[in-house]
């Protein structure tokens, strides 16, 4: 599929709108109108471009923001749930647990205990290339042909 610059710009706009946690989140039909595509084409093009449907993208974006807020440690799980636009604490917890691998309360306790320098991002949110390499076993850096156990 070939996407012209205008199409790319519109779909990026839709992506930004999907990420904003708002009381009244725009429906997929609203967004399709906003970017001047039919709902069918909007969903299809969005998925081809970003690898997930608009709905999946919104859920993922909300969970990402939830992780940041929980890591900052200044909000309760209930506050975070409301802040990112979930109306039910139960569905938020279930979804968070399924995607992140632990309940929001457990995640909050774990990442909060890390030492934080003011003005920096919590270490749990920095899975940068170098920090990943720093935590690899030393054997990972030996001759890969012989000593590295391929996953």
């Amino acid at each position: 599929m070939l996407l012209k610059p205008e199409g790319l710009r519109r779909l990026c706009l839709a992506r930004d709108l999907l990420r904003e946690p708002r009381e009244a989140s725009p429906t997929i039909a609203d967004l399709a109108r906003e970017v001047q595509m039919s709902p069918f084409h909007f969903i299809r093009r969005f998925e081809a471009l970003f690898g997930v449907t608009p709905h999946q993208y919104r859920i993922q974006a909300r969970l990402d923001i939830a992780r940041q807020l929980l890591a900052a440690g200044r909000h309760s799980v209930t506050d975070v749930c409301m802040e990112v636009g979930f109306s039910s604490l139960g569905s938020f917890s279930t979804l968070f647990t399924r995607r992140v691998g632990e309940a929001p309360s457990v995640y909050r306790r774990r990442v909060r205990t890390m030492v934080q320098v003011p003005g920096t991002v919590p270490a749990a949110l920095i899975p940068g290339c170098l920090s990943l390499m720093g935590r690899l076993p030393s054997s990972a850096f030996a001759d890969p042909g012989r000593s590295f156990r391929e996953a």
Partner: protein
Amino acid sequence: MRIKLTSIMVDDQEKGLRFYTEVLGFRKKHDIPVGEYRWITVTSPEGPGDVELALEPNANPAGKAFQEAMFAQGIPIAAFEVGDIAGEFARLSAQSVVFTRPPAPAGPVTLAIFADTCGNLIQLYQRT
């Protein structure tokens, strides 16, 4: 000093691994769990064999902001060399890959740009 490893940020490592192997055709070299994330690298079957591309999670908000801004501006974040750019364009298009620029000459190379479904635009180039 030599260049052995480079990396690209992906918004979802599992999705990234699928795209870079199943769609692009790279081979998985390492896949090691590291906390919540994974250390994933791929290599090209066309070589050079010891140069690895790491698929890094973009969980750092700063990385995400950078990635999204580059994407929205239509700027590719990496470039791969190909031998037959028209053939790659046809092959990837058949797999629903979105191109923002079809193959077109640009001086000494022919360029094309596609979206990797993980938040990046990637440039393909063929020397002419």
